[in-house]
């Protein structure tokens, strides 16, 4: 037991609530102090929890209260920290703290300043609870709660129609995933009678194969939504309507990785179902590839990074699919650093360029914002998988994992995507920071961001450089040893990777990454390759990528519009005409009949008297027939 665990999420929650309730009138532009304090407290406590778990090797937990006691459906609010959670805690609070600090500069002067610093700690709280939960329902609860924060923060500049639409889209698309996730949770409960991780993982072995596969796939549906896998990744690029720190924290470093975390957390279920694993791997690889191709063609700097995020999430997913659990979490961690860094760097660029996001209107910014440039370059290198930056180690390990996991095709797809990754990352770097200055120099004066923004960049870039080494040597680093207790037990298969394989793939990865770098250099610095010509030559393929593989259009025509038409039909025809028409028809029938019948009421008393007499005759007649002995 660790009775202080609840303080980890409570600190940011308190900051969020206080800022929300009093921010508008009393706290106003001092809101960031409270938020940073809360998240910093959570960070310190997380590190303490991490240390304790690392020291003892035992999971620590705290039971707070019973949330839902519905008969045999007893759901506690209980927190557990094992190694996996400990890693997530540190990543969430660490990146979260840096993003908070960065936001002080980025959001300075915004009328919704207090609101921002109320939503952001709320998100940190939700995310912490998500990783701390000890059962699936609690996980689901905060799974949705981070969705709420995501909604509020994407729609932070709610007066923009596009932001409002994007927020709604993100929430609704996530709900599609949640639909599957929720069903999975129900299926677990109905089959196993419990939702606590330990009980579920123990019980999985006793379930028939089909049920396990179904559960695993349903859970993965949730991950598809939250972690923006094909086919539900469409919300994530749109989510870039939110302020850039939000993109960095939520849509790169933490929330979108919740799906990866959840699958890793449920590894026992997935490991018990090879079919489900295959699906996960295929979807992950496809996502990695598709998103990388789209990333090649976009011009909005944030959109490129967003697609890069989707692509990297695809890597993590297929790492899970091939059973490389630790590698997935490793990549999750390194990705949090370098992608957070990239987003914050992009934010710094946007900030310095007065809200310009189109790379076609940038160029040559290197000399205006050197700190941003160098940190961004480090992030790009890490993302592209250049030795020795963090991304190299984790991504290489994933590809190796796929290869030795018996999925060579997926490994190859991963390698191709890696080429694209390197290409689009350096395309961004070169388009933004190198080359001629394509912006309107009379109106736009690029400038370096203030220290409150650059210091987080520096810290994160240190992370992006160094984080990879916790996983060194590959497959056998400190990180893997730390996570080992989580991913061991029945169903876990250990692949013994020979040093030769590791070295070979390291070499291949490096070559590929450098090839991407070279291509980008050729196209955007030296000009020996003309991107426009290549695009023209690729024709439909380029259009496919540029139009984001038409996912949005397909959804629009296949789902959204028919559904709207169906709804209008249900309302206008079924509801108003058929159902209500029947009701009103009955009323009209009564009224119609009554109108006919009232003719009987002549108003002549004589007629009424006649009717009375007739009635008398009938009654007496009835008496004669029934009551008297006349006919007996």
């Amino acid at each position, binding site marked *: 037991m660790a009775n202080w665990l609840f303080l980890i999420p409570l600190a940011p929650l308190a900051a969020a609530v206080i800022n929300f309730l009093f921010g508008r009138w009393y706290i106003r532009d001092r809101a960031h102090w409270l938020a940073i304090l809360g998240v910093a407290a959570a960070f310190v406590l997380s590190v303490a929890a991490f240390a304790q778990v690392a020291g003892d090797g035992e999971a620590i937990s705290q039971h707070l209260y019973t949330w839902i006691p519905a008969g045999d459906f007893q759901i506690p609010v209980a927190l557990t920290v094992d190694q996996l959670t400990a890693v997530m805690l540190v990543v969430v609070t660490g990146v979260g703290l840096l993003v908070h600090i960065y936001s002080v500069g980025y959001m300075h002067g915004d009328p919704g300043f207090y609101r921002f610093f109320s939503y952001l700690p709320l998100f940190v709280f939700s995310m912490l609870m998500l990783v701390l939960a000890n059962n699936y329902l609690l996980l689901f609860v905060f799974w949705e709660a981070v969705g709420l924060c995501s909604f509020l923060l994407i729609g932070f500049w709610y007066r923009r129609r596009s932001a409002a639409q994007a927020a709604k889209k993100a929430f609704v698309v996530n709900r599609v995933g949640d639909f599957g996730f929720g069903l999975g949770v129900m299926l677990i409960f109905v089959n196993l009678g419990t939702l606590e991780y330990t009980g579920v993982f123990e019980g999985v072995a006793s379930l028939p194969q089909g049920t396990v596969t179904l559960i695993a796939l349903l859970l993965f549906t949730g991950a598809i939504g939250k972690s923006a896998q094909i086919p539900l990744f469409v919300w994530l690029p749109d989510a870039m309507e939110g302020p850039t720190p939000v993109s960095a924290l939520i849509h790169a470093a933490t929330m979108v990785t919740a799906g990866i975390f959840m699958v890793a957390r449920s590894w026992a279920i997935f490991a018990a179902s090879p079919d489900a694993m295959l699906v996960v791997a295929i979807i992950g690889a496809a996502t990695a590839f598709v998103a990388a191709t789209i990333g090649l063609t976009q011009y909005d700097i944030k959109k490129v990074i967003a697609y890069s995020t989707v692509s990297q999430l695809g890597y993590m997913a297929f790492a899970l699919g091939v059973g490389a659990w630790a590698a997935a979490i490793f990549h999750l961690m390194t990705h949090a650093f370098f992608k957070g860094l990239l987003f914050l760097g992009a934010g710094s660029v946007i900030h310095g360029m007065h809200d310009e996001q189109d790379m076609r209107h940038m160029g040559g910014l290197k000399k205006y914002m050197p700190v941003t440039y160098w940190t961004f370059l480090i992030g790009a290198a890490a993302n592209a998988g250049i030795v020795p930056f963090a991304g190299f180690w984790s991504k290489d390990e994933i590809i190796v994992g796929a290869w030795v996991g018996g999925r060579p095709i997926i490994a190859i797809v991963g390698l191709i995507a890696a080429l694209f990754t390197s290409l689009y990352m350096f395309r961004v770097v070169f388009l933004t920071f190198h080359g001629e200055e394509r912006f309107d120099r009379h109106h736009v004066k690029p400038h370096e961001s203030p220290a409150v923004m650059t210091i987080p960049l520096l810290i994160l870039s240190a992370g992006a450089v160094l984080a990879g080494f916790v996983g060194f040597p590959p497959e056998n680093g400190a990180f893997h040893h730390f996570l080992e207790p989580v991913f061991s037990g029945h169903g876990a298969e250990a692949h013994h990777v020979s040093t030769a394989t590791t070295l070979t793939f390291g070499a291949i990865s490096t070559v590929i990454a450098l090839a991407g770098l070279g291509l980008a250099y050729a196209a955007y610095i030296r000009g020996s390759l003309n991107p426009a010509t290549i695009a023209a030559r690729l024709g439909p393929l380029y259009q496919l990528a540029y139009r984001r593989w038409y996912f949005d259009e397909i959804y629009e025509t296949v789902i959204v519009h028919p559904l709207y038409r169906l709804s209008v039909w249900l309302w206008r025809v079924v509801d108003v005409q058929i159902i209500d028409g029947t009701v009103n028809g009955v009323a009209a029938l009564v009224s119609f009949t009554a109108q006919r019948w009232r003719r009987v*009421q*002549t*108003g*002549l*008393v*004589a007629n009424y*008297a*006649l009717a009375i*007499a007739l009635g*008398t005759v009938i009654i007496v007649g009835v008496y004669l027939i029934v009551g008297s002995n006349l006919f007996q």
Partner: protein
Amino acid sequence: MSELTANHFLVLSAALFIIGMMGVLTRRNVLVIFMCVELMFNAVNVSFIGFAWEQNSLVGQTFALFIIAVAAAEAVVGLGIIMALSRRLDTVDIDKVRELRE
């Protein structure tokens, strides 16, 4: 038919009742209709008292007494209505009084 039996009274009662009823049905003057109604009341009273006589009971007479009382009340109100009717509509012709229709 040597003895007086209740059937005598009943036949008388039936005759009076039906004559009254015919009056109600055929006449158009409200006043005459009113008088025919009184006639029908009376016919009923004859029946009651006839039965009472046959059965050696006073319940029938009691009933008839109440009927007379009620008839008195009815007469008062009914005649009041006729008065009001003739004042308002200038008629006592039952066929001209059709306000119930709408």
